[in-house]
């Protein structure tokens, strides 16, 4: 059981594998020259960065719809800093894109996360609508329905990162940073988050100040979404309200849940497959949501671990069958532990 239960505060195999996979994304610009590959990889990396935001909150059994809001805050912060402040240094912009959304999330989270989880879900949903309205209603700051256009290329140590390849490097770097932050937070607070996910009341009665960890998770999740916003604005060279539409929040939730919410690899697998599929099969944006809807229902009813969990149970099953065939006793391998939900329902 050492394998599935890493020690306190240490990153487990899922976290390490995630960071490695995203580090490998840096190789893409060297392997391929195709603009299509660049574009799809870029979209996938942005999706992964944003999906990590959903993943962190799901660790505590909280569903967040606020990803596009914080992406917008991060993206517009970067655009304003570049256009009005003349800041082009990538590291400085990334720091801004992380910290400004995080600072906005802090009071909001402290306010809402003291209440029952369902209020949080509802408030984040309303927040996406409000931020969208704000973007249109404050043309002086955000350019209203024109958005902010003409972003200058970002720089790193004085080097201009202007061409497609450089933009992909920035996206990969931001995704890797997001992965490192996610891995760090979820493994350092693994037991706290698991306690909240498993039984919040019990965790509280054992002395865990639940809302503090929730707020911490929310603040980090907002920062990650901000990084995704930076990546998106950097790819499009504009900050426009339609990039951060409330409807898109469902995509990031879909990537995470369909990929599998039980490991950090889940959002990576989900984002990669779903973004790739929508691009390759040329599914129109609006139709892809129907597909996500069907997949979400299937995952919730049949494969609670998502794609990743399904593959894992399949491997274990094959292992057991093989062990049986060769006559040895099957290795003790409980399948992916399903989240226990205490059944309070009395059969009629």
């Amino acid at each position: 059981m050492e394998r599935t239960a890493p020690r306190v505060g240490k990153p487990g195999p899922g976290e390490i594998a995630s960071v490695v996979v995203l580090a490998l994304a840096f190789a893409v610009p060297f392997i391929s020259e195709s603009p299509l590959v660049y574009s799809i990889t870029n979209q996938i990396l942005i999706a992964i960065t944003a999906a990590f935001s959903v993943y962190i909150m799901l660790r505590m059994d909280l569903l967040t719809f606020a990803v596009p809001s914080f992406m917008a805050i991060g993206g517009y912060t970067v655009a304003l800093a570049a256009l009005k402040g003349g800041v082009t240094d990538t590291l400085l912009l990334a720091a801004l894109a992380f910290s400004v959304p995080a600072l906005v999330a802090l009071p909001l989270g402290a306010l809402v996360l003291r209440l029952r989880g369902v209020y949080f879900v509802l408030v984040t949903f309303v927040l996406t609508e409000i931020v969208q309205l704000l973007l249109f209603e404050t043309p002086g700051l955000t350019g209203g329905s024109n958005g902010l256009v003409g972003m200058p290329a970002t720089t790193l140590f004085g080097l201009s990162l202007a061409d497609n390849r450089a933009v992909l490097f920035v996206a990969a770097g931001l995704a890797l940073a997001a992965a490192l932050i996610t891995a760090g937070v979820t493994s350092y607070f693994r037991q706290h988050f698991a306690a909240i996910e498993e039984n919040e009341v019990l965790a509280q009665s054992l002395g865990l100040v639940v809302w503090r960890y929730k707020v911490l998770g929310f603040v980090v999740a907002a920062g990650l979404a901000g990084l995704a916003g930076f990546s998106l604005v950097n790819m499009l060279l504009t900050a426009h309200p339609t990039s951060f539409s409330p409807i898109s929040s469902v995509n990031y939730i879909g990537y995470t849940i369909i990929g599998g919410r039980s490991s950090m690899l889940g959002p990576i697998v989900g984002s990669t497959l779903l973004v790739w599929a929508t691009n390759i099969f040329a599914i129109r944006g609006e139709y892809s949501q129907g597909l996500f809807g069907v997949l979400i229902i299937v995952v919730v009813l049949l494969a609670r671990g998502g794609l990743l969990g399904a593959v894992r149970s399949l491997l274990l099953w094959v292992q057991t069958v093989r062990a049986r065939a060769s006559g040895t006793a099957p290795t003790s391998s409980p399948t992916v532990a399903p989240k226990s939900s205490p059944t309070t329902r009395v059969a009629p």
Partner: protein
Amino acid sequence: MEGFVAAGLIGVSLGAQYALLALGFTLIFGILGVVNFAHGGFYVLGGYVAYAAVHHLGAPYPVAVIAAALVTAATGYAFELFLVERRIDDHLATLMLTLGLYLVMSTGVLVVFGPESPQFAFPITGTLRGWGLYVPIANLIVLLVCLLAIGAVYALMYRTDFGRALRALADDRQVATAQGLRPRLLFPLAFALATGLAGLTGALVTPILSLAPHLGDPVLATSFLIVILGGLGSIGGATTAAFIVGMVEAYSSVYLGGSKGALVLFVLVLVILVVRPSGLFGREVRGA
């Protein structure tokens, strides 16, 4: 002064529509403990069913409205019975199921009817004039039907055995079940009642406002604001909060202009959550 009264009338009719919507939402949460993300989807579905009945089948508008309520109720019934029922105790799972259904429903509407808003007008035109006011007859009829429907929901919940059973289940599911109430029978019916209300509202309101496939999102956001304000699961709270929200929206759109009303409401809701965490009229209902 006329402007003030006119805005008040708009506020009341908005409030009545919102109340019907929010009643359905709060019933599902109160009784089943399910946050129904498909609620806005049922509103849109109701609108489109009524539109299809009028324009493709040539049904008279009142029949179309009833058809819309029945179709959405039947969809909700089947959805609860076959899908939600299986994960009823896991609030995050049911939330994601309803979200999935919402995506499927709005994409379905998009595929069948296309992205453009159809021409769906209220059959009765004309305005009443008096005391310096112009009131479209259509709005008055919608207001009246909404108020009647709200009354009917109250009568159903507080004057019939069915309503008493539902309220008992909302109050304490285990005790109610021990007393012989059967959630497996009543939950789909409660879900159908709530989605039917959303469909009815959609069929009534979309002809005087607008009809489009992605209308579900703002409708859902408004329902959320109302139930948070009124207290999740509270019937009286939802009704009162709906009229407050309607009034705030009407007056802010007249006197502040644009969509600042939504912003005012959001801030108001955050303030309420600090001062009264369980809403204006809420009590601690369930620990979902």
